[in-house]
């Protein structure tokens, strides 16, 4: 019985920690989705780019991956701004047979990024073997007679905490600053925002930059406990996509909750169904969200607010 409890709690911890990081990946995509009304399918590749930045800084300059958040995130901001300004904006202006050709453009950008990474870093697996990679805190260290043993991995916890700090910072930015309010205005009603004197074009550029910076930060937080290779992006684009749908397109709170749900759900399926089922679980959630909760978590939140 105690053993079962231990397994359950340990799984839950793993799920929450994973979910926090997923949320950060999803946030960037959902933000871009909200303002631009397009899904950025190069999202995972942007994360891959930031991971390579962190890897290079660690390998050649011995800079800790957590510190490279402050270098990689601004660089990714610039990359995002450049993508929006010189690639996506021109495409937005062009009439085409396909209504969503910006989305297709992001797929192309993702492929280009992955192939450039292959050219520079080869397709070998790389990692940043940090000295604290396997450091963990144990329940029995704090509570001597604890009947069960739980472990809290240090890098996972640090990454989780930084992810939360970034999320709170983003919330603060969106709700308290002029630029943040303008972004939200653009997301809610583009024409109205335009009439109120919001520089919509600039907001789009800024949003794409922030979205990229967020996933860039996520990349740096991931690399101490993971590894990287050029084609790793697709996997994370998919995760971000599922979270965006689950959270409700464009909702930041929804993305956070969606990330946590996905993290916990994946961990639970791994423990109680088998690890091979985790990807299946991901799609079951995706399809279920589309069928039963088309507006995502955000629609639940809204419904409650209206009820009051």
């Amino acid at each position, binding site marked *: 019985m105690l*053993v*079962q409890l*231990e*397994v359950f709690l*340990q*799984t839950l911890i*793993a*799920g929450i920690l*994973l979910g926090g990081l997923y949320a950060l990946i999803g946030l960037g995509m959902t933000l871009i989705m909200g303002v631009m009304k397009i899904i950025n399918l190069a999202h995972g590749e942007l994360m891959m780019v930031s991971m390579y930045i962190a890897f290079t800084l660690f390998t050649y300059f011995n800079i800790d991956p957590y510190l490279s958040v402050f270098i990689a995130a601004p660089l990714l901001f610039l990359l995002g701004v450049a993508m929006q300004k010189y690639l996506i904006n021109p495409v937005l202006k062009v009439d085409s047979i396909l209504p969503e050709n910006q989305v297709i453009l992001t797929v192309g950008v993702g492929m280009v990024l992955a192939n450039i990474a292959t050219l520079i870093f*080869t*397709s*070998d*697996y790389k*990692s940043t*073997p940090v*000295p604290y*990679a*396997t450091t*963990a805190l*144990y329940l029995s260290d704090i509570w001597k007679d604890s009947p069960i*043993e739980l*472990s809290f*991995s240090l890098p996972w916890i640090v990454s989780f905490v930084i992810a939360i700090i970034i999320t709170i910072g983003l919330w603060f930015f969106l709700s308290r600053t002029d630029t943040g309010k303008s972004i939200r205005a653009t997301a809610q009603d583009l024409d109205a925002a335009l009439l109120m004197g919001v520089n919509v074009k600039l907001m789009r550029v800024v949003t794409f930059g922030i979205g990229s910076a967020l996933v860039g930060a996520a990349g740096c937080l*991931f690399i101490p*406990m*993971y*590894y990287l290779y050029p084609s*790793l992006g697709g*996997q994370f684009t998919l995760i971000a996509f599922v979270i965006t749908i689950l959270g409700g397109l464009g909702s930041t709170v929804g993305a956070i909750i969606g990330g946590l749900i996905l993290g916990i759900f*994946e*961990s*639970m399926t*791994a*423990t109680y169904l*088998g*690890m*091979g089922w*985790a*990807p299946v679980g991901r799609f079951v959630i995706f399809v279920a969200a589309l069928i039963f909760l088309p507006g995502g978590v955000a629609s639940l939140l809204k419904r409650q607010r209206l009820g009051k």
Partner: protein
Amino acid sequence: MRHLVLLTTFVFILSVASAGAVFAQSTFDLSISLPLTGKTAKFGEMQKKSYEMAAQEINAKGGVKGKKINLTFEDSGGKPEVARSIAEKMVDVKKQPIMVGEYTSACAKAVAAVAEERKTPYLVVASADDDITQKNYKYVFRLNPVSAHYDDALLAFIKDVVKPKSMAIIYESSPFGTAGSRNMVKEVEKAGIKVLVNEKYEAGAVDFKPILSKVKGANPDVIYMVSYVMDAALLMKQIKELRIDSRLFAGGAAGFDIPEFVENAKDAADYVVTSTLWTPQLNFKGSKDYANKFKSKYGEFPSYHGAAAYSAMYVVKDALERAKSWRQDDIRDALKATNMETAFGPVKFEDREGYQNQNFSDTYVRQVIKGHHQTVYPQNYANAKFIYPIPKWRERK
């Protein structure tokens, strides 16, 4: 005038061609198909270096029957369809009487089919899938052991030294991982060891802790894992984080057997044992020379993939020297009669246990001791004493 130009050109082409033919007669041209790009490129690269090293040595000593070996390499990228077309080109266009190489089992199968069809002997160097030499092919030979025998030494080690009652198996959902797990389950159940957990995972998983907490709850005596490099390191790191105190952590070759495993898993890799087909510490004729030469040239010890490639070159040389003529059938007969010692171990192509033309070499167990892989089992090959029982995580450091 125009006729004269044409004629001179024709004569010129003819003379160049015949000069080429004369030149070709003093060398033996051998094309080898390998993955030099793609996911398995790392292994292909190591094999290429090893083939070249062996060919240089042979040429320095006068070549094969006075002819220098002229090696060229073709990149199959690990794709079976490409490997097949390369093999067809070798046989049909280049008229090469023998083929060597490839890395993945899928590619080796494609080449083997061509070899049998065109009646050209083919030496498989490092592809493990059992059924490559189970198809009654007359012209396909295999130097490396089959995957069903990869864990022979490890199993003996587990049965003789650890004597466990239970086991947990975690494996990658690839043909190699699935075959490894299937063989292990079959063998341990025969020995009365209970398999408590038998789980596969998708390569590239981020977090193994859920599955590992389940393993921890089941409390097995041995944890056996079949993984590629990065997953192997992640698994051991997270086992350390969760402090799972099994009596033995064992890996099935591949990811656990290369220096990158220790580099990435660091102290979590300590005391992990792994199956292997060859180690730089072995005492076969030329093993140590090869290992040291490779290390001084490229900075790191080769793994069994390299040693097999290096030895394959010598097996080919040996067969070519004994063959009555360098026609396909004569070379095939010479290969069949091979009985020699190489850096990889003794080589002899036998028909038994349902395999044809299969070399049954020994496998070994290596353990990570103080950050380095040491050969620990079977004892007559060991260069270090195995460490067992291993210390509990809490007591380490």
